């Protein structure tokens, strides 16, 4: 990478044109459809927004989505941090194994992983069959079609984002720092909490933000694991566009979701100093 950048003008021009192509792609694939959605949401003034906000099931799905996003973010952080730490600080072999396991899961289709959790959590699934076989329970436990099932599946699907972000950050922190702290008398625990952990926070924050925002837009996994009884925003939007053919209200719901994401990103960039990590702000947020 570095070598290419210091190359003569020709190489640089090549990279710039490739970058412009990427920009064009983003413009066509992201900005244009988004503009259409926004325009459609406004096709009846603000009536579509009024209708969306007047729908009790939409409000309920907003609440479900918020709870889910917080839950997935917390679970991903708690599970992801130790994993990333082990990946960054263990020997070559262990690190490779951890990375391979992570990537295998990461690259497996979301549908496959969601259905796998169905197989595990069903009334006639692995967990219930095993517990019944062992005589622990008589009637199957209600695992599937609960918010908890969605939380488990979503965490499994999104935790790699947290892990990779933390891992990238941890790799940038020299292990010498912790060693130096210990040389100055800190215990292993103290060295971690006073030196390594604070330095790794930007990675944790970036990963968590990513997971939080991604969770808001998920549809398939909540549908498969949480069922229709625990709808998230995506399910409300599908109902409007597919069942009611009401693309105006559906678009309004999508725009509301988008606004929520923008506000969250804005607040995060402003107050949490995440701008630097996500590249949203340049100098100002340097502490």
């Amino acid at each position: 990478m570095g070598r290419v950048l210091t190359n003569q003008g020709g190489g640089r021009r090549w990279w710039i044109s490739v970058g412009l192509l990427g920009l064009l792609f983003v413009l066509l694939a992201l900005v244009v459809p988004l503009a259409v959605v926004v325009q459609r949401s406004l096709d009846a003034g603000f009536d579509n927004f009024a209708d969306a906000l007047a729908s009790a099931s939409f409000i309920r799905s907003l609440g479900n989505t918020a709870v889910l996003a917080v839950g997935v973010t917390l679970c991903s952080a708690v599970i992801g941090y130790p994993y990333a730490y082990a990946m960054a600080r263990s020997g070559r072999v262990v690190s490779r194994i951890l990375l391979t396991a992570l990537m295998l899961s990461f690259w497996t289709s979301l549908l496959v992983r969601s259905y796998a959790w169905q197989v595990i959590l069903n009334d006639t699934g692995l967990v219930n069959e095993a517990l019944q076989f062992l005589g622990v329970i008589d009637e199957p436990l209600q695992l599937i079609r609960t918010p908890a099932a969605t939380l488990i599946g979503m965490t499994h699907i999104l935790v790699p984002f947290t892990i990779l972000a933390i891992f990238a950050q941890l790799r940038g922190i020299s292990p010498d720092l912790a060693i130096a702290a210990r040389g100055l008398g800190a215990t292993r625990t103290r060295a971690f909490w006073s030196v390594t952990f604070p330095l790794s926070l930007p990675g944790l924050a970036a990963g968590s933000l990513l997971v939080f925002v991604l969770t808001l837009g998920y549809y398939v996994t909540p549908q498969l694991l949480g069922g229709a009884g625990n709808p998230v925003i995506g399910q409300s939007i599908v109902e409007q566009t597919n069942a009611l053919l009401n693309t105006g209200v559906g678009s309004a719901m999508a725009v509301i979701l988008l606004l929520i994401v923008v506000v969250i990103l804005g607040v995060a960039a402003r107050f949490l100093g995440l701008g630097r990590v996500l590249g949203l702000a340049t100098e100002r947020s340097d502490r």
Partner: protein
Amino acid sequence: MIRHRKAVIVTASSLAAALALTACSSDSDSGSGESASGSEISGEVTFAGYGGAGGDSITSAWLDPFSEETGVDAILDPSMDNSKLLQMIESGNVTWDVVEVGLDFDLTEANDGLVDIDCDVVDCAAFDGNWEVTAKGVPMFIYSTTVAYNTDAYSEADAPQDWADFFDTEAFPGKRAINSAEGFFGLAEAALISDGVARDELYPLDIDRALEIMEPVKDDMIFITSGSECIDLVTSGEASVGACYNGRVTLAASEGQPIAQSWNQQIQSADYVAIPEGSQNVDAAMALIAYLTSTEHAGEIADYITYGPGNPAAEVSDEAAADVPTANEGDGDDAPIVADWQWWNENRADVLETVSEWVAS
């Protein structure tokens, strides 16, 4: 600092990639052939259907033979979706010529996004049963939602027979697979009938009463959104009874899965065919519709999937008859339930909101 920047790039680019992926949607290639003039048909027609077993059957029963007979290439695009269709019509970028639509799509004169059905080409007079040719659509096939059950849980002798049994989890214990994505279309009628409401007094539908009837068994209901889920749930034993599509039940049973159905009070529904305004090959599209709804050919679908012909004059083969809804209609209390789709089209939004709210609470 360099490392830092690397982390920035990794995170930012994965965010961008994730966002871009969710926004990506594939557009199918334009399916237009040369446009036909006069009554000579040529070129290509794209039939937009739903894929799966239904799509395969339509291809084998109708599209391939039609192609052979007329020389017009009839191709299935299995990505039909109501909202996608609306988008196409609105944007004027129509790549479909014949579309498979449900009754929830407005097929009346009022819908100017669809081409008028030409009764000089289509044999409209043959449709004199429950399912009529409308200004914009022709009934293609009839399917039903039946009381399906797991045969490991119930033998044929003591199996649930009708909707009263379906909603009675004391006599017939176990979970119920039921589609909640369509506001209990037809199922609300079934619940009311099971509670003693006379069939000619169903409308306007008392949705609140229907939900009250379902309330006692709500905790045992598994709310689904697709036909395949119903089969998965019932055959796996996850649910003991389901309100499943008849065609899928027969197919699963023929594969040796533990599932069977009762035809009593089957809730009938029809899929229609229509032509979107903006189709590149209207003449060939109309000819395809005439072909697959003709008295001669409409019944041939039953040899591939257990749907009845939308044309009541069409016959199905003897081998197929045992599994086709229209050949297994009961009488009196057991007669098919046919929902009033016009009432539904007028009230769907309110009903769906009420039902979604009930399902989620």
